């Protein structure tokens, strides 16, 4: 005769649980395709955003200097023509690292000592923080707080009693607006603004003097032309006026000014009848259809460049010292510069936010993740619900609630893994292709392999976690019911 003495059911080892879960998954993988597909789509979306943003940021980082170089001549023309704005001065002082060439330049022009400059740095840094704060406000709020002024004018306005009163009372009403530093500190800063303002004036006066000095030296000659001699006498003049111009920079300047002239020269040739006709004959089109981009594309090859220079010679056009090699190089650099321009425009919002992909992108990734979470939760809910009968049977056979939940968790995580892997791959390929088309040669030198790997792992992880979390609730609901109650739900 069998007696019954009731004990506690022992727990299974995690190895056994895993084994049972894997058996189930293997059998059901095909049927779970829909769930996996949802996860793939969701994670591909996330990975696409991440990859695209990471590539944009990496490209932005790698071309920043090249873009700066692109504007080198313009920058120098500006420096040699007008003093800097107060905001620019503050920004550069704030970020200066001593010894700083900028500091030396300012010191040489204004006659202030380096120590005096260094002493201004903390105040300048504070000023920059406030300027950023005002810059990031929307127009309406800015108007309410400080009226129709901007940049450092704001500080001047706040020095008046009325201005400060308006500012402090309006700020108290705005709950979501926070000053970067305490209000008392800002007030102290405003009171001390005169000092900083005077300092800026001294700097600007120094710059004005230096500019005047340079202009006296060149007379009526345009600055661009004068810059052709930046590595010679004109360079000396600039340096004598106090500008920091190292020989390397001077050499590049000279070269670039030359390029600019040569470029202008080539662009002018399209108006010469003989050249137009020669190009048209060569391309087998009408002379009227010849365009400048067409010529630039043509001379990217050395043979064509040589031919083109030959055409110029035949038409007795000055070749400005161009050799086929330099012409080819200029043409290629133009193409590269266009690519850089695209990159500059495409990567404007890079930086900040999650993994430095930009705040807008972080927000987008977050929203997409929410959408994904809902999709995955729905898919998991359905796939667990259709298996309530199985859960009930397992309970009839003596499975513990924890076992059932663990099995479903492992299953969901595995589905998440497969889906996440597929999604990460799909998203990567999609974004990679798109970015390759946009950035072309700029992409490969900057490709952020490591970060993209991290992003891939992140997507897979997110897929697994989302799937697992979505499986917890329905399996918990089913597991804690009496077996036959679970079997009745359908």
């Amino acid at each position, binding site marked *: *005769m*069998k007696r019954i003495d*009731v*004990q*506690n059911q022992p727990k299974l080892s995690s190895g056994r649980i895993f084994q049972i879960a894997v*058996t189930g998954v293997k059998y059901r993988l095909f049927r779970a395709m829909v769930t996996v597909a949802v996860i793939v789509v969701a994670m591909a979306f996330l990975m696409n955003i991440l990859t695209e943003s990471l590539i944009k940021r990496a490209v932005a980082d790698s071309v920043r200097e090249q873009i700066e170089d692109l504007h080198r001549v313009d920058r120098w023309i500006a420096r040699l023509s007008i003093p800097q704005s107060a905001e620019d001065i503050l920004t550069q002082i704030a970020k200066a690292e001593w010894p700083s060439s900028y500091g030396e330049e300012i010191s040489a022009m204004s006659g202030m000592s380096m120590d005096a400059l260094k002493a201004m740095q903390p105040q300048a840094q504070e000023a920059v923080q406030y300027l950023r704060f005002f810059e990031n406000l929307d127009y309406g709020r800015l108007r309410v707080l400080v009226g129709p002024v901007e940049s450092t004018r704001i500080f001047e306005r706040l020095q008046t009693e009325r201005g400060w009163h308006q500012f402090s009372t309006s700020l108290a009403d705005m709950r979501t607006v926070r000053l970067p530093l305490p209000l008392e500190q800002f007030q102290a800063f405003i009171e001390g603004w005169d000092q900083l303002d005077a300092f800026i004036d001294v700097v600007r006066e120094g710059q004005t003097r230096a500019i005047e000095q340079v202009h006296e030296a060149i007379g009526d000659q345009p600055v661009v032309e004068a810059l052709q001699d930046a590595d010679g006498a004109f360079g000396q003049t600039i340096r004598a006026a106090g500008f920091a111009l190292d020989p390397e920079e001077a050499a590049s300047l000279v070269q670039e000014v030359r390029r600019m002239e040569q470029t202008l020269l080539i662009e002018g040739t399209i108006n010469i009848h003989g050249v137009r006709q020669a190009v048209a004959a060569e391309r087998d089109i009408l002379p009227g259809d010849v365009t400048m981009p067409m010529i630039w594309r043509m001379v990217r090859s050395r043979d064509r460049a040589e031919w083109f220079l030959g055409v110029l010679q035949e038409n007795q056009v000055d070749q400005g010292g161009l050799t086929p090699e330099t012409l080819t190089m200029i043409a290629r650099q133009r193409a590269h510069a266009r690519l850089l321009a695209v990159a500059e425009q495409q990567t404007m919002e890079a930086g900040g936010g999650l993994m430095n992909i930009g705040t807008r992108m972080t927000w987008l990734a977050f929203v997409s993740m929410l959408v994904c979470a809902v999709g995955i939760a729905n898919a998991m809910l359905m796939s667990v619900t259709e298996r309530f009968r199985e859960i009930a049977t397992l309970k009839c056979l*003596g499975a513990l609630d924890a076992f059932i939940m663990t099995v479903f968790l492992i299953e969901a995580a595995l589905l998440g893994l497969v889906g996440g892997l597929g999604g990460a791959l799909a998203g990567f390929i999609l974004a990679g292709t798109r970015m390759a088309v946009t950035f072309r040669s700029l992409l490969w030198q900057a490709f952020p392999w490591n970060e993209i790997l991290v992003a891939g792992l992140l997507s897979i992880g997110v897929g697994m976690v989302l799937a697992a979390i979505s499986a917890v609730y329905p399996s918990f609901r089913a597991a804690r019911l*009496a077996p*036959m109650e679970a079997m009745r739900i359908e």
Partner: protein
Amino acid sequence: MTDTPAHMPLSEPEDVVSRRVIIRAVGMQKVYQRGEEITYALRSIDVEVYTGEFIVVMGPSGSGKSTFFNMIGALDSPSKGRVFIDEVDVAQLTAEELAFLRCRKIGYIFQSYNLIQYMTALENVTTPMAFGGVMPDEARKRGMDLLDLVGLSDRWFHRPIEMSGGQQQRVAIARALANQPSILLCDEPTANLDHHTGDEILAILQRLNKERGVTVICATHDHRMMNICDRLMWIRDGNIERIARRDEVEVEVGSIE
């Protein structure tokens, strides 16, 4: 645990000392409610089942047999009343204790088999063993023996969808025997079997009952069962219509003839 070959007088218990009640239902009721509509699957059931008994439950379709099984097998909770298994109130058991009871002490053969679709016949049979902590190798061996017992050892690797109804039913029977239960609850165990296989299954049930003292409760329309049972129970409209010993019924059958 086979203390005494449980062959006892088949009458209602006069001798309380020698007979233990293994399952006791007191005022057991089950109500299904769906919105306004209320179904009484069981109205009020009072019954005592003794250790080592073989009981056959009969009744028309929809009379509440399966519901009765679920209640006394601790698979569902009654709406009213109590169920005692070996004098322990099922409602008082913890989740772990319930799992233990379902795993080792009670074997279920469901009317709809309820096999796990993604498992092979053997895996289905060894799953309760795994839950009971039997090592995989040992479980395989025992599982093959059980499949052999129901005549399916050559099909151990088949999944339920690859098997006929009768074969699935036999896997379900093997699974119910996995942990050598003290109580066997069978909901129409021979419904899908041919005459010959049915006989074999009946022989297995009878042997378990006589040799190992397993308490067998069996819902069936199969009249062969009447020959091997100790008591018969008729359920109609959620009530026990009648309980009788086999000899009493045989007398009636004889008198009719």
